[in-house]
């Protein structure tokens, strides 16, 4: 027998066939995949003891409880905390990605002092002692010149111990310029003050409502406390409750609602009053209870005279029959609830709109009722001893605020939106500015103008944990611990109908040479000495917090939150028609900037749960979830109606420039049936220049394209859009 080439090949083929029907290849595939997972260079967190820590997420004002899984001192996973009154186990994509903000490359690791020009990115590492003494020296110098009022601070909100430490510091130092980042809460608070006569936070018993009339609120786009609203929305769907979304763009919320009513942007207040007109005309309200309330007659007169269905139809572009049926459905529902605050509610909006919507709630009698709107007394746990001001502080505190809040606009507490113009027009100046838990150079409208204003402030101190736009344009950075490394109280989140105080706890030990901003303030105060030091009797921020929370501390430490067993409702006399409503007698929507001739289109922003647009920017995980129709490559997409596209000769995917009176940016065109013709929509939350390479340079910042529009009553920013033009490239 001859063993030739053929025999050999035959042997090989037989061998291959046999191998294929033996377990060898299949088992090896499985084993090698497991083997490759265990390669020593495959990044695996080191083994250790597993544990869990409960805390509170502070990445947005939602106040969700979180449970952090740890291996030794390393946090490995953030989950929603089960049983938490805000989110009960739920978590959003941002909260889930929080670990990237703890361990990611964007952290400021040690105190930094500017070495080059401002914004150049050259920094010198300094010690904490040096950092505190630099600030102290500068502040002492300003104070000795009698210009204490020229020091300001910008923080995220005015509640909680840290913002109050800033406020206390400025008061003891002698400056009224405590400023906060604006949001819809400002408008709601003012509505509460003007219509209900109470200083209270608004709460919505959303879960119990059965007909939700939303004036552009992004219920599932990040409005209010996002996870809570997601859950409420799911429950409405399951239980057959109705959601009507009034919005000029088919947002995710609109798409998931039972009825979407597109409206001419900026005319929401007129629609609310048009609905009120139908309710009054058809006597769909409780006459006995409502008619005795103060201001009702004047309100009725306004609504009947000015807001007939036909009139409202021509203002809003919604046909009369729709308005009538909407009003009937709303008024006849057993627990109707009207809400407003556009998108995520990150801009205050027009006060008229808030008051008109609140009047609708009052008309159907759902104020402080189950399923309705609640006036929640602000948490009152901060009871610090009265501070003693020295003569400099007293004279400083008597000066008017730089932003005109409390003087020009008597009801406003803070009007950061006016700061840029006041400084740039030479009407006021600041000698030093503290920025904490806020990124105004990114998130304030007309951020470029604010940047110019910052240029004229000689000393800007940032307390940011991250190299954000504001931090990178400051002179000194005193980095705060991130939320997973520090103690801090989280006051009742906006929109919750009960007081729930959360406690952020150090889940891991601080990763870098950072310091709790509360401690930084106390150290600066102590170094300044005198009455300023006396105003801060605490050894550390943690001691201050523990003392402030008193008997709530133990519960907070154990459970992560403290909640009131019953509601603390602020009651005052309701007024349907406060003076501020008079401007509604001749309706004109808050006028937006730009002439119709050079700017034939209207640019509006939109929000997405996948895009953070406040202090925190999207971490890498989150930016990866943004769709191609929102951000393509490094260019943001604008949405326009195919009709608009046809008129302008713009097709899907074309590059174009968007021009507004405030700026210009390169965008990509996305044709979308869900937007009204003549309107251009651009996502908020893109176009960062700072943070890390995963976020910076992607898309354009909406805030660079829009300018603020002052609400005539509140002084808050009421801009809902700006006129714009699209040009082909």
């Amino acid at each position, binding site marked *: *027998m*001859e*063993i*030739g080439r*053929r*025999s*050999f090949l*035959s*042997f*090989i*083929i*037989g*061998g*291959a*066939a*046999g*191998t294929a*029907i*033996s*377990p*060898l290849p*299949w*088992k*090896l595939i*499985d*084993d*090698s995949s*497991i*083997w490759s*997972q*265990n390669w020593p260079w495959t990044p*695996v967190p080191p*083994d250790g003891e597993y544990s869990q820590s409960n805390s509170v997420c502070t990445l947005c004002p939602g106040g969700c409880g979180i449970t952090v*899984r740890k291996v030794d001192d390393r946090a*490995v*996973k953030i*989950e929603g905390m*089960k*049983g938490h*009154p805000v989110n*009960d186990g739920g978590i959003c994509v941002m909260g889930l990605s929080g670990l990237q903000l703890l361990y990611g490359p964007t952290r400021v690791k040690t105190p930094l002092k500017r070495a080059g020009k401002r914004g150049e990115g050259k920094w010198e590492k300094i010690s904490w002692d040096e950092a505190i003494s630099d600030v102290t020296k500068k502040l002492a110098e300003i104070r000795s010149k009698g210009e204490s009022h020229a020091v300001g601070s910008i923080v995220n909100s005015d509640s909680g111990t840290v913002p109050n430490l800033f406020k206390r510091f400025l008061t003891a130092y002698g400056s009224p310029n405590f400023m906060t980042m604006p949001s819809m809460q400002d408008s709601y608070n003012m509505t509460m003050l003007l219509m209900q006569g109470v200083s209270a936070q608004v709460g919505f018993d959303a*879960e*119990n409502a059965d007909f939700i009339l939303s004036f552009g609120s992004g219920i599932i786009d990040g409005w209010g406390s996002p996870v809570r609203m997601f*859950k*409420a929305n*799911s*429950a409405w769907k*399951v*239980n057959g409750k109705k959601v009507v979304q009034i919005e000029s763009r088919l947002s995710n919320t609109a798409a998931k609602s039972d009825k979407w009513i597109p409206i001419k942007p900026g005319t929401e207040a007129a629609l609310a009053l048009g609905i009120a007109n139908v309710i009054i005309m058809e006597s769909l309200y409780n006459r006995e209870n409502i008619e005795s309330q103060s201001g009702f007659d004047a309100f009725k007169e306004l609504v009947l005279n000015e807001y007939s269905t036909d009139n409202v139809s021509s203002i809003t572009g919604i046909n009369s029959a729709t308005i009538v049926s909407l009003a009937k459905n709303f008024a006849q529902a057993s627990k109707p609830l009207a809400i407003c605050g556009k998108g995520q509610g990150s801009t205050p909006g027009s006060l008229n709109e808030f008051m008109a919507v609140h009047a609708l709630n009052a008309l159907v009698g759902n104020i402080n009722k189950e399923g309705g709107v609640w006036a929640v007394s602000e948490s009152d746990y901060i009871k610090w001893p009265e501070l003693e001001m020295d003569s400099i502080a007293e004279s400083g505190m008597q000066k008017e605020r730089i932003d005109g809040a409390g003087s020009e606009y008597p009801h406003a507490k803070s009007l950061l939106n006016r700061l840029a113009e006041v400084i740039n027009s030479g009407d006021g100046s600041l000698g030093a500015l503290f920025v904490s838990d806020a990124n105004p150079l990114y998130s304030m409208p007309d951020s470029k103008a604010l940047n110019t204003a910052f240029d004229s402030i000689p000393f800007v101190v940032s307390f940011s944990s991250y190299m954000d736009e504001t931090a990178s344009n400051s002179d000194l950075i005193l980095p705060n611990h991130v939320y997973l490394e520090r103690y801090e109280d989280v006051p009742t989140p906006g929109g919750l109908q*009960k007081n729930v105080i959360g406690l952020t706890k150090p889940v891991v030990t601080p990763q870098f040479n950072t310091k709790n901003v509360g401690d930084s303030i106390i150290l600066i105060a102590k170094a300044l000495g005198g009455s300023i030091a006396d105003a801060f009797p605490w050894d550390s921020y943690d001691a201050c917090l523990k003392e402030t929370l008193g008997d709530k501390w133990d519960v907070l430490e154990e*459970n992560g939150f403290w*909640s009131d*067993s*019953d*509601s603390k409702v602020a009651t005052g006399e309701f007024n349907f028609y406060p003076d501020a409503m008079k401007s509604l007698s001749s309706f004109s929507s808050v006028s937006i900037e730009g002439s119709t001739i050079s700017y034939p289109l209207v640019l509006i922003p939109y929000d997405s749960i996948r895009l953070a647009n406040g202090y925190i920017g999207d971490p890498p995980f989150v930016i990866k979830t943004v769709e191609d129709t929102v951000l393509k490559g490094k260019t943001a997409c604008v949405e326009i109606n195919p009709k608009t596209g046809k008129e302008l000769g713009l097709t899907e995917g074309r590059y174009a420039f968007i021009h507004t009176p405030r700026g210009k940016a390169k965008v990509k065109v996305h044709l979308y049936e869900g937007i009204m013709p003549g309107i251009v929509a651009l996502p908020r939350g893109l176009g960062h220049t700072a943070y890390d390479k995963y976020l910076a340079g992607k898309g354009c910042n909406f805030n660079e394209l829009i300018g603020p529009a002052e609400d005539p009553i509140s002084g808050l920013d009421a801009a809902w859009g700006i006129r714009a033009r699209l040009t082909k490239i």
Partner: protein
Amino acid sequence: MSIQDDKAKEVSADGAAGPIILFFILGLAASLVFGWVIFPKLLYSQKKQPIDFNHVLHVEAVDEGCESCHFFREDGSFSGIPELAQCVDCHEEAQGEDPNEVKFVEEYVANGREVPWLVYARQPDCVFFSHVAHVKEAEMDCGTCHGHIGESEHSRVYEENRITGYSRDIWGKNISGLKKHTWERMKMDDCAECHATKEIKTDVETLPWPINWLPLPYKKQTGNQASVTTVKEACFVCHK
């Protein structure tokens, strides 16, 4: 080409067909033997347990079956293989003359050293398995997954996969990956087999704090849930 040539070719082709088939069969047989018999022997190394443990003897001596030694802690976590401290309760000194017990007492108890048991059922680190959910909640038998280990008089040889480092028990004794009984394999598919078909009993999940002012969706529904593997975030139940 001539007719003669063609004939010659046919003859030679006929003559070669035999060896070709033969070699094919040889190749087939050799690879089958290699794949089914030799390969498993090469793939797994054989390791002996440090002490030959007699389960039968121990089960007879205790009252609560498996849970006497493999118990649940107060917090619901599972103790797994007993630690030395537990064994010492009875074996501070050798109770009999069994050489294994003597070795255990001399080498480990006397020196306070933990026994480096080789764990047949050790899963990769990424797998989170809750014994309490299965044994207490679902009332499953230990044997469903671990087989008749309680009836063994000697410790089996521990076979370690040379490529992955895991025990042969995970893939199963049968190299083909097929099994006759539930306890013969412990890969993800085997978990899924049960979870895809069986309903899991879930009691009402009550919230740990009284927050009765929160209505739906905060109140949990009673009822059976199809399976833990089909609900939202199911992956994270086992893969943390």
